[in-house]
Every structure is written in structure tokens, then in C-alpha cells.
């Protein structure tokens, strides 16, 4: 193995990521897992249909047990979201919400699927006319304007900070920021205007976005609203790496039976690769991805060593 601290990175600590960590760890790869248990689809579930667990168990219990198991195989956990992923010289670089950057030989994407729509009046009507789901893509169209970002987690906080470079005023509409302390500090020290304990009731405008109605009955005049719920998902993180999505829905990452994507060293497992959205499928794919990723990292290290 290489001298690096970690060689297999896993984004996501749901059943897919946990099982991948267990199998990668058992192959003696040095594994780190990013993500938060409460953001797993399983966190609030009560599970009755997973093989070999006779009694109904809660998802929360499963996630905790999985973490302990993975740790016993040497995996390390970091309860942070990834806000940026890129690749350079056959290596993957991940940036965490607190600003740490890590480099890895292999990467397993196990981010699950999360709801990204706000489901309020005006949202659908104004897509592309002030409503955006991607700060990284669309910030440039709002130079000198007033904009709002909606969301409680890392994607919204990081998005609001990024928008300061373009927009005149940036509001962050959130119930409560659920982000790392370091990111929270950066946010509080920045010029982002944080509107807390509130949410969006309606997006208003004639032909394009002109403002927001908030649940505390305040209204906000903005030309743009960036909906950034949860953590950055497959489209935001993985598309930048050049991953191929299924052409039909553009929601799922294409893999083969080894859970390989089109990018060497990059694997995907769990809900992120498509239906059925079930634990059994997630752990099955996680197992394969974990083994394959560990093997890939070992071969890469061997070939680099023999080349000197």
C-alpha cells in the first residue's frame, strides 16, 4: 500500500457506504468515510424486509452498528459533507465543508438520493427564470443582484458563501444551520445575511422571480433563489468528475457489475445507482465496490512502486 494516510474514500455512510467500508477495510485498504448518519435514507426507517434480521429494527440502530463494524475493520469516520470533488493525475481530491482537502487513489460514491425540490408555489414556474438548483453553474448570471439561498445544510451554506463573489446581497433562508462549526463560523463572519427560524412559503414574480414570501410572513425582494437542500448530491459532485449518468432520467450513476463507473478508480453503490431503493441492494453493491476499490488501490500502488 502507499504511504498515504488513506487510499479509499467513501462519500456516504448509509448501508452502501458502510458495507463498502467493511469490505475495503477487510482487504487492508486504509478507508475514510464521509457523511452524516441523519442524512441516510435509513435514519428514520423501521426495517422488516432485510434478510436475516428477524425482528424489526430501526434504521438508526443499523447505522450505528454498521459504523462500529466498519471501525473494527480499520475504517475512519469524518462527520462532514463533501462540498467539492475533482480529479487530478489519476487522484481524487475532496474538499470537506470545513475546508479540509484530501487526496485519494480511489473513491466510492454512496450518497444515496435526496429530495432536492422545495415544493412551493412558484418553484416550477420560475426554473431558469430566477430559480436555480446549482450555485456553481448559475452564480454568474446574478452579478450585482440580490439573491437568496434556501437550505439548512452544507450545500446552502457553501453556496451562499460562493455567491458573495457575484451577487450584491446574499440571504440565507434556513430553519437552523446544520453544518460544521468551522463552516458556521465562516458564514457568521461573512456578509451573508442569515434569516433563521424561517422557510420559503412561496416564490413570487410576474415573468421571473421578484421575491420570496417567508413563513414568518416577511417578504424578501430578490431576483434569484438558489434551492440547495441537504448536501451536494450526485449531479453536483459527480458530474464534475465526468461520470456518466443514465440518459433516461439523469439521476443515476451508471456502473457495471463491479460497480465501476466510466472513470478508472471511481465506484458507485446504493440508491445512487438506481432502483430498487432497498438496503439489500445497497449493501450488495457496497460489498462489491469496497472489494474492487481496495484491489484497484493495491494494484495502483504496486505499479507505481515497480516504476520507482
Amino acid at each position, binding site marked *: 500500500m502507499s504511504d498515504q494516510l488513506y487510499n479509499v474514500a467513501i462519500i456516504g455512510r448509509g448501508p452502501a457506504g458502510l458495507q463498502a467500508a467493511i469490505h475495503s477495510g477487510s482487504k487492508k485498504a486504509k478507508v475514510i468515510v464521509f457523511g452524516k448518519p441523519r442524512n441516510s435514507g435509513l435514519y428514520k426507517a423501521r426495517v422488516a424486509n432485510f434478510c436475516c434480521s428477524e425482528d424489526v429494527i430501526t434504521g438508526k440502530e443499523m447505522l450505528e452498528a454498521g459504523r462500529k463494524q466498519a471501525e473494527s475493520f480499520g475504517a475512519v469516520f469524518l462527520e462532514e459533507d463533501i462540498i467539492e470533488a475533482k480529479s487530478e493525475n489519476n487522484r481524487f481530491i475532496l474538499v470537506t465543508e470545513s475546508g479540509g482537502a484530501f487526496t485519494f487513489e480511489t473513491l466510492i460514491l454512496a450518497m444515496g438520493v435526496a429530495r432536492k425540490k422545495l415544493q412551493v408555489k412558484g418553484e416550477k414556474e420560475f426554473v431558469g427564470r430566477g430559480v436555480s438548483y*446549482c450555485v456553481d*453553474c448559475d452564480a454568474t448570471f446574478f452579478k450585482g443582484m440580490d439573491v437568496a439561498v434556501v437550505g439548512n445544510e452544507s450545500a446552502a451554506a457553501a453556496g451562499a458563501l460562493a455567491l458573495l463573489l457575484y451577487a450584491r446581497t446574499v440571504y440565507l433562508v434556513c430553519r437552523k444551520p446544520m453544518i460544521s462549526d468551522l463552516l458556521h463560523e465562516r458564514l457568521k463572519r461573512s456578509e451573508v445575511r442569515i434569516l433563521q427560524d424561517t422557510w420559503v412559503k412561496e416564490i413570487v414574480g410576474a415573468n421571473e422571480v421578484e421575491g420570496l414570501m417567508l413563513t414568518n410572513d416577511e417578504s424578501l425582494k430578490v431576483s434569484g433563489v438558489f434551492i440547495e437542500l441537504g448536501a451536494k448530491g450526485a*449531479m453536483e*459532485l459527480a458530474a464534475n468528475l465526468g461520470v*456518466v*449518468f443514465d*440518459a433516461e432520467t439523469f439521476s443515476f450513476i451508471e456502473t457495471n457489475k463491479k460497480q465501476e463507473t466510466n472513470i478508472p478508480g471511481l465506484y458507485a453503490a446504493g440508491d445512487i445507482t438506481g432502483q430498487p431503493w432497498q438496503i439489500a441492494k445497497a449493501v450488495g453493491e457496497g460489498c462489491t465496490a469496497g472489494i474492487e476499490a481496495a484491489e484497484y488501490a493495491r494494484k495502483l500502488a504496486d505499479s507505481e512502486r515497480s516504476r520507482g
Partner: protein
Amino acid sequence: MGQGVLDVDDSSFESEILKADKPVLVDFWAPWCGPCKAIAPVMNQLEETYGDSIIFARCNVDHSPNTPTKYSIRAIPTIILFQDGKVVDQVVGAVPKSHLEELLKKIL
């Protein structure tokens, strides 16, 4: 099969798109945009199928600031179908391939 996806910019937009003798599907994109990368191969696939009767083009908004402003583009990818210099329809975001095919069927 046609010519591949054509790169256009502010200066060639009028001649290549608005004055084209065929309908044109234009993908407004930028290198920093993840969803744009995801949809690029679909434009290529569609071009292989429909390239004889429709021109497929892409416009990098980073190099061409005027055209996106003219068409009030505020999110990318935005894909616009032009015919005889006029906008027939447009979609925003990395939409499914079938959705783009529906769009093309309007004019085929």
C-alpha cells in the same frame, strides 16, 4: 449522421443559428457546470440520430456573454430549439434524453 455538435459564439450566432436553413438545437453550457457535462454526451447521441435534419450546436456562456443575456438565460444547461431564427421551445437543466426527443418531434 451530420457534422457533429457545432461550436458557436456571440459572433457566429446570427449566421450559424438564426439564419440556418434547418432547425437548430443549441446547448448553452460552461466548463464549470457539472450538469452541463452530464448532458453533453446526449447532445452527441441525438446528433448522430437526427443530425441530417437538425443542426446541433453548443454555446459556451463563458466566452459569449451577449447571447445568453439576449435569451434571458439564467441557468445552465439551457437548451433552446430555434427555427427560422425564432425560439420554438426551451428546457432548463439536465433533462432526460426522451424529453429532448419530444422537443425535436415538434418540428420533425
